[in-house]
């Protein structure tokens, strides 16, 4: 395949060679995925039917792990939190990332500076950002000071001004934090594709008399369909697996009052605090099903714009 000249053979041989090339090019990634990822999935599926402890299996449980999960109130809360988080944070992330990318693409002076600046939250140490955010959202922190300046009294709120520490506002605060830090990453995804739109397209639009917003709505936005798909799918998959900020802000128990309990935090607890690997595996399988379903739904929704299927 490498450098072999195409013979003047029939269409059949050409397609076979193309297929062979296709398989060859994905061989290494696929092998690695099978061993280190998909393999783990099958392993988890297997052990999810057992009471499996640190040193191995003890009893065969059949579907009992799954029954327990589906009945567990805490798991219900975890799913509710993870889904709520995803549904809110993904559109915000996408909108923010797209806005930043289009802005950076459009502005003239200082473009490089702004491009670097907007990506910075993704680069900068999450330790610093999290600490700063915790400070800003503290009862005596920056946000409350600003609110007081405009005449609002945070201490009279139900959460007594403790944004991250109160069960009513904790999750929304994490949404705010994450939407902001991931905006830079989403911007990058969009930037890559924005650059691929040739200038002829814009010239043609201008000739037809289209203004800035119309061009964006009718031309740029639709042409970014592959990028939308990428950003949406990756965001949803990531959001459903929220763990780090929930763990840092709320601790392993999902405090305050399970407001920060997410599915992956629940899984973490099952593995590393309750040492029940079989149970954790069952949680992992359920999570996988949830995410996979969400991805399939997105695929159907964005499917028409996934051009590969048209070829």
């Amino acid at each position, binding site marked *: 395949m490498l450098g072999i000249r195409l013979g003047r053979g029939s269409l059949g041989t050409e397609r076979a060679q193309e297929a062979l090339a296709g398989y060859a090019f994905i061989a290494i990634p696929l092998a690695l995925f099978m061993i280190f990822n998909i393999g783990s999935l099958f392993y988890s599926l297997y052990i999810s039917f057992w009471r499996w402890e640190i040193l191995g299996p003890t009893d065969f449980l059949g579907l009992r792990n799954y029954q327990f999960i589906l009945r567990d109130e805490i798991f219900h809360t975890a799913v509710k939190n993870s889904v709520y988080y995803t549904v809110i944070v993904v559109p915000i992330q996408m909108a923010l990332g797209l806005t930043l990318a289009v802005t950076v693409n459009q502005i003239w002076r200082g473009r490089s500076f702004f491009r670097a600046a907007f990506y910075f*939250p993704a680069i900068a140490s999450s330790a610093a950002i999290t600490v700063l955010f915790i400070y800003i959202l503290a009862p005596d922190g920056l946000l409350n000071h600003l609110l007081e300046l405009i005449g609002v009294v945070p201490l009279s709120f139900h959460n007594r001004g403790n944004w991250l520490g109160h069960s009513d506002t904790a999750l929304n605060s994490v949404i705010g934090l994450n939407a902001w830090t991931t905006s830079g990453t989403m911007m990058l995804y969009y930037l890559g594709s*924005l650059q*691929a739109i040739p200038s*002829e397209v814009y010239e043609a639009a*201008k000739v037809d008399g289209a203004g800035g917003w119309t*061009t964006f709505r009718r031309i740029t936005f639709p042409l970014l369909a592959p990028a939308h*798909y990428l950003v949406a799918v990756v965001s949803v998959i990531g959001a459903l697996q929220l763990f780090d900020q929930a763990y840092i802000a709320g601790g392993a128990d999902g405090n305050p009052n399970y407001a920060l309990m997410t599915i992956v935090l629940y899984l973490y607890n099952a593995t590393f605090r309750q040492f029940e690997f079989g149970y954790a595996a069952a949680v*992992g399988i359920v999570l996988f099903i949830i995410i996979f379903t969400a991805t399939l739904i997105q*695929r159907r929704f964005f499917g028409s714009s996934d051009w590969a299927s048209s070829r």
Partner: protein
Amino acid sequence: MSDTTAARPLTAVEPLPDDNRSRRRIGRIVIYAILILYSLIIFLPFLWTLSTSFKTLPESLQLTIIPREPTTYGYVKAWTQLLPPLPVMFLNSAIIAAIATLTNVFLGALGGYAFARLRFPGREALFLLVLGTLMIPDQLRLVPVYQILVNLRLIAPGPENYVGISLIFAISATSLFIMRQFFLTLPFDLEESARMDGAGFFTAFWRVLLPLSRPALAVVAIMTFQGTWNGFFWPLVILQAPAHWTLPLGLSQFRFQYSADWPPLMAMDVIATVPIVLLYLFFQRYFVGGLSAGAVKG
């Protein structure tokens, strides 16, 4: 590469009546003002990091921007009190991140190309499988992956440990996804001319498509480097000897159960952020220009 191709702001080019022009200028000033404000807010964490790295421990808990008694206590401590020493950690992080970036860029581009532009049976199903790998949290993978690596004898205090961790970071579905989506936006007749001249699939990929995909490659490179540079979980469980530890594992040495030694922690943060910033600035140029019109000619 110049700034003059691809997305030109239409508003700057159109001839306009006079009153629109002044309105537009005000609009632009407002936009710039917002952008500058936003950027300042963004740099705030980094400013705090930088300034705290020069403070004493008691002062580090306050949010002053300029330290009252500047000191290099943090940097000295970070340099001398880490296990292993800071330069060793830096090198470990650099090696692991560099290998991961190279493999991701190459395998991602090659695989992304295959998924986007080559036809083979089961292609969409296999791509869904690739996406599926993103749906398995690390916490779930830990025990089986660890056991596989143990069986391959890659969990050991020797250099084979690097092979172990490189296998984990070698290729990510996100890299494949980014490259695939990018290749989907390129016209399908691009490599036809090369193939008509008799080039094989790999040559068409290497000679024609790869040079055009610099923006996407840059994105993959930045994401991968940054992800592995800041990665904590896998280095924690895979790297056995302290001599192999990476910067995030060093960072956690200044965090304790109830407190943190902020000045050296922030000093390490500053030092750890520098390479990423440099890399990003280096790859910036690929976000300018993008597709040159010439490629689509003919």
